[in-house]
């Protein structure tokens, strides 16, 4: 019973920490996937007084490609309504239009920076960035991502303190055994094998719990999220990379707490 209680005292913060990390990873993946999807559709219209021959003039902006919009197509659309002289004037005065596809979908502030950068170019007379619904939704997702990040950091810090406290209790409970084993010639790491084995069992229990929860939620995403949200959500079924990250965190955080207390124990006991 005592063993079970102390196990729960360790497993609980570990599950909290891993769950919040899973949510953090999931939200990040959703936002990044959405961002990639939008980036391929999104373009900026650049209006230039003369043809942009030297593409290096735009080198400060990271873009995938720049497409020239054919002027003749624009004129063809309006030529029936114009007189011969107006058409000549339009031919003479009509600026050059370009469609700029960015490599990444920018944030609002990045978009403003790009707009200012383009406008500072002498040949560019106008820029249309189309601050559409996409941008607003993206801002909302970024806000959600930031909130989840902050929450994750808070949970991580408090969980770490709880794990540290529980390992400290175990060190106290096993102090006699540790000192006897050391007197028999065992190293400090060997003497604390009992603690290490409880930590490993706790990690295993926590990982199984968190993975089960995570995959149940992903498989039933439609039940836990709004239908409007589902339509914009990309596929997140493949979480193999995220799973590795979760396993690494599940091992690293208890390992850091354990190592910190081993060092403290060595200093306190002058061994």
């Amino acid at each position, binding site marked *: 019973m005592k063993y079970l209680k102390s196990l729960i005292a360790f497993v609980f913060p570990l599950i909290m920490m891993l769950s919040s990390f899973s949510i953090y990873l999931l939200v990040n993946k959703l936002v990044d996937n959405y961002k990639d999807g939008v980036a391929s559709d999104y373009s900026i219209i650049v209006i230039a007084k003369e043809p942009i021959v030297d593409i290096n003039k735009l080198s400060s902006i990271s873009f995938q490609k720049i497409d020239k919009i054919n002027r003749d197509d624009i004129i063809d659309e309006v030529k029936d309504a114009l007189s011969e002289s107006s058409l000549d004037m339009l031919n003479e005065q009509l600026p050059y239009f370009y469609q700029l596809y960015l490599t990444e979908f920018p944030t609002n502030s990045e978009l403003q920076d790009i707009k200012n950068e383009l406008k500072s170019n002498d040949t560019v007379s106008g820029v249309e960035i189309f601050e559409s619904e996409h941008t607003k939704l993206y801002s909302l997702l970024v806000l959600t991502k930031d909130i989840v990040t902050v929450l994750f950091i808070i949970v991580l810090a408090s969980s770490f303190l709880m794990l540290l406290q529980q390992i400290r209790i175990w060190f106290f409970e096993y102090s006699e055994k540790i000192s*006897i*084993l050391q*007197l*028999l010639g*065992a190293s400090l790491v060997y003497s604390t094998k009992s603690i290490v084995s409880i930590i490993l069992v706790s990690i295993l229990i926590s990982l199984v719990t968190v993975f089960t929860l995570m995959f149940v939620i992903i498989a039933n995403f439609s039940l836990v999220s709004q239908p409007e949200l589902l339509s914009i959500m990309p596929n997140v079924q493949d979480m193999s990379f995220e799973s590795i990250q979760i396993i690494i965190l599940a091992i690293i955080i208890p390992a850091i707490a354990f190592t910190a207390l081993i060092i403290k124990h060595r200093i306190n006991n002058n*061994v």
Partner: protein
Amino acid sequence: MIVATDISLSYEKDKNIIENTNFHIKDKEFIIISGSSGSGKSTLLKSIYGNLAVNNGSLAVNGVDITKKKYQKTLDLRKQMGIIFQDYKLIQDYTIEENIAAPLRIRNYDEEIINKQVSNLLKHVRLSHKSKAYPNQLSGGEQQRVSVARALGHNPKIILADEPTGNLDEYSASIVWKLLQNANEQLGITVLAVTHKLPQNLELDYRQFNIDEGVMYEVS
């Protein structure tokens, strides 16, 4: 085996328990250090098994200078020793055979050898029938016999015994002294025992030191 040159020992600065002490313990000797309670007998033993740094002078065990406590050096040294304590220091959640096997497992002995060795030791201390029992199910005398078996298991070069019979009745004490005598005479292990109760009714060939007011001297 153990050479102490002008050693001083203390737990607090400027309050020496042992002062400017010299002694030389040879290989395969049986040494008894006596003295009244609080005279510093156990303190001396602690410094020999590396639990207390030497303030002044130098202390060498088995040719290794252990004047300054060094973690790895202390561990290596303890691997050559068997230590017996007055309060037995058995691991309570280990069975008797697990307790005896512990030093062997620490030294990475093969499991087959461990089982054989533990079985022999249990026979030697006449506790084969209690191999699966836990320490709290044994009497004081039996626990101290387990402690002796544990100290002997890995064929140590030296056994340090800190008041090995301090908590035992006369009969149990005589069994423990006999086991230590056998270890010394039959296995050639150096024994250094600290006690305030000298062994009775035992033909034991030993050299005795006494500690009085921080000074250790040989009793002729």
